[in-house]
């Protein structure tokens, strides 16, 4: 299980190299979140709560691992200043069959969205705005 919170850019391909390889793993699912350039966005600033962030993510990753019997889990989430096109975060799950890997990845994404202490600010030509949490992200947790 790997959990990283970092400012540096990461390479999804390199991170997935060898991930979940061996044993009885038959499925690896990964998701990468990317900064959208919609609406003339110049950059995105991500703030987080050091300590709480790592602990919260490690807890979600452990829960996903136990619940879906995953062979491995990887979560990387960035903070700091990012420009459109850059990866913000990624999750990867490895399991025996694909359904568990897909479900566990969705579970992790839903929890990261509204329970990991990150806050995004968008900076564009019209100034800066804190991204507001969406009600649908909150209700998405109900299905788990």
């Amino acid at each position, binding site marked *: 299980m790997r959990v990283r919170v970092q400012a540096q850019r990461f390479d999804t391909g390199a991170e997935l190299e060898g991930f979940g390889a061996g044993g009885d793993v038959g499925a690896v699912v990964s998701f990468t979140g990317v900064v959208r350039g919609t609406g003339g966005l110049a950059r995105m600033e991500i703030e987080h*709560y050091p300590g709480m962030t790592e602990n919260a993510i490690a807890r979600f990753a452990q829960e996903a691992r136990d619940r879906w019997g995953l062979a491995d889990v990887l979560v990387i989430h960035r903070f700091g200043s990012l420009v459109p096109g850059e990866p913000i975060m990624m999750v990867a799950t490895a399991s025996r069959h694909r359904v568990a890997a897909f479900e566990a990845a969705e579970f992790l994404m839903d929890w*990261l969205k509204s329970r990991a*202490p990150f806050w995004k*600010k968008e900076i564009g030509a019209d100034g800066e705005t*804190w991204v507001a949490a969406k009600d649908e*992200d909150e209700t998405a947790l109900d299905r788990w």
Partner: protein
Amino acid sequence: MIDVMYFAWVRERIGESRERVETQAATVAGLVDELKAREPRYALAFEDLSALRVALDQELCDFDSPLDGVREVAFFPPMTGG
């Protein structure tokens, strides 16, 4: 004494990211009332508690949670990770 931390627009409104606070409050809500009474910037930041979340020693809690034994309180808007 208790460490109080602010994130995102709460930090911007208050103008600090962290401070040591002397408090007699028994709950988070009591601490919020003390802070609001200090200066308008606090009153503005804590205007609408439904728009805020609180963590006690890095665990999400409620505004009626007790402060007994707590070392670190953090106030922030709903999280927007992912």
